[in-house]
């Protein structure tokens, strides 16, 4: 039941986006998000065209991309209501004390488009990049922070271990829950306080198990000569290819266009 959950939402396919260096995709997503907040009117057309081309290039079915939108539906609704109701300006409709303004409607539309595009843009990154590549990209991009003693290598190692163990712990939760149910435990009824109390037989073994695993893993890592990031080589180092430089070129061009549109007030 719980084991069906796959983390991240990588969609395996062979496309130019899948092959790009994860750092390019990371930076690209960032650039796209920035551009969304630069746009006024015509900019949105540019943003839409850019996104559409990326979706086409990714070879990920559109259905998968829009899956993530469900989770932001509530946020989207709240944003729209707030913008419609509380933006002052030229009044379109007035019902009792509620006024709806032209600016409000425009703002609400703009905000929703931004949110939806933002969501699709970042899903596109996670759909075409494995969680491992993402942690590698993060480690590499945050590399300069090592100079100010930020433990970049350790953070990325922790993320990658977490990715490995979350499915295992989920399965374990399922198992302990069933084992306690076999002893008559009840996880479903009672008021809030009762329910929290009923969780103890689940949480205590789960924590103990997590600590035991952490201990075992630390020992196994030490036994395999792990001693931090120093003097470590990489099996799959990130190396830029020609296509990655080309992609950076496209991104720069896109950013320049977005800024240009903004400056021209279009």
């Amino acid at each position, binding site marked *: 039941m719980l084991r069906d959950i796959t983390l991240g939402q990588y969609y395996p396919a062979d496309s130019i986006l899948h092959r790009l260096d994860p750092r390019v995709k990371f930076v690209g997503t960032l650039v796209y998000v920035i551009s969304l907040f630069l746009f006024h009117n015509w900019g949105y057309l540019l943003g839409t065209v850019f996104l559409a081309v990326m979706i086409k290039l990714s070879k990920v079915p559109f259905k998968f991309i829009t899956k993530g939108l469900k989770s932001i539906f509530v946020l989207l609704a709240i944003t729209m209501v707030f913008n419609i109701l509380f933006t002052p300006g030229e009044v379109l409709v007035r019902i009792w004390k509620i006024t709806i303004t032209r600016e409000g409607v425009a703002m609400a539309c703009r905000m929703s488009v931004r949110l939806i595009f933002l969501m699709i843009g970042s899903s596109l990154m996670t759909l075409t990049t*494995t*969680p*491992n590549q993402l942690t590698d990209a993060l480690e590499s991009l945050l590399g300069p922070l090592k100079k100010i003693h930020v433990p970049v290598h350790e953070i990325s190692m922790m993320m*990658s*271990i977490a*990715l*490995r163990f979350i*499915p*295992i712990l989920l399965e374990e939760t399922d198992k302990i829950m069933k084992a306690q149910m076999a002893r008559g435990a009840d996880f479903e009824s009672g008021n809030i306080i009762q329910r929290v109390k009923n969780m103890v037989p689940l949480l205590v073994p789960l924590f103990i198990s997590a600590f*035991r*695993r952490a201990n*075992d*893993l630390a*020992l*196994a*890592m*030490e*036994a*395999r*000569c*792990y*001693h931090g990031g120093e*003097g*470590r*080589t*990489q*099996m*799959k*180092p990130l190396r830029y290819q020609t296509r990655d430089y080309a992609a950076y070129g496209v991104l720069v061009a896109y950013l320049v266009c977005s800024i240009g549109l903004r400056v021209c007030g279009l």
Partner: protein
Amino acid sequence: MKSARMQKKAGNNVMGMIRAAGLGYEYLRYEEEGQEPEVTKAIEDVSLEIQKGQFIAVLGHNGSGKSTLAKHINALLVPTEGTMWVDDMKTTDEEDVWKIRQKAGMVFQNPDNQIIGNVVEEDVGFGPENLGVPTDEIWKRVEESLTATGMISYRAHSPNKLSGGQKQRVAIAGVMAMQPECIVLDEPTAMLDPNGRKEVLRAVRKLNEEKGVTVILITHYMEEVVFADRVFVMDNGKLVMQGTPREIFSEVEKLKELRLDVPQVTLLAYELRKNGVDLPEGILTIEELVNALCH
């Protein structure tokens, strides 16, 4: 000068790759608050020698100290008494710790808790990465060790989708990629089903026979011990028996006292002998028993 060096070399050949002299490990146990901690000896006065290329089995009931002994070979624990040498390096010398861990790799009981990578090949590459091996060389080693353990076709899989036996073979490959001379396996089959146990044992025996890797296998399963060159039996932190499997398994009564077992064939032969059937001591395989009974 020259003769001294010669002597040392000659000594290397005679003396084992792994040697323990008067090894002891104590730790403090806190029973209850406010009480004086209790000194517990996990192992006591263990002396042994293991030659290069040998297949060693270590037997002992739960809590007999065999895991503690195993961790000393890898310098994960250092003795509180006596000395452990791995390839003439003392495990207490801190500057040699990483060299020792590279020489003597270790595989643990729980297959899930020792796989670090999210992809099989990345996990196998973890050890060489830590050793600072160049990228091209890492790929070569990963391919070699996955081939040696028969897991090459799973290289791109997630470890979560593998069976227990397959996970242990990945763990073994991960150790092999560090090119150790010796591999210590701490109950690697305890959590596996019979088929997984067979897979792992086959892989380990192959490494020993084809690559000459010294193997130290800690186990509860008597059938896995039959192929060993030498067997050590631990009890209460002490080394109480050692010898060839045949020598060890001819002492059925003593093994039972030590909470251990003998392979079922051996037990049957023992029972028959007790009832006056003329059979040699320490029968280990079905063929031996059938031949002895029928000829």
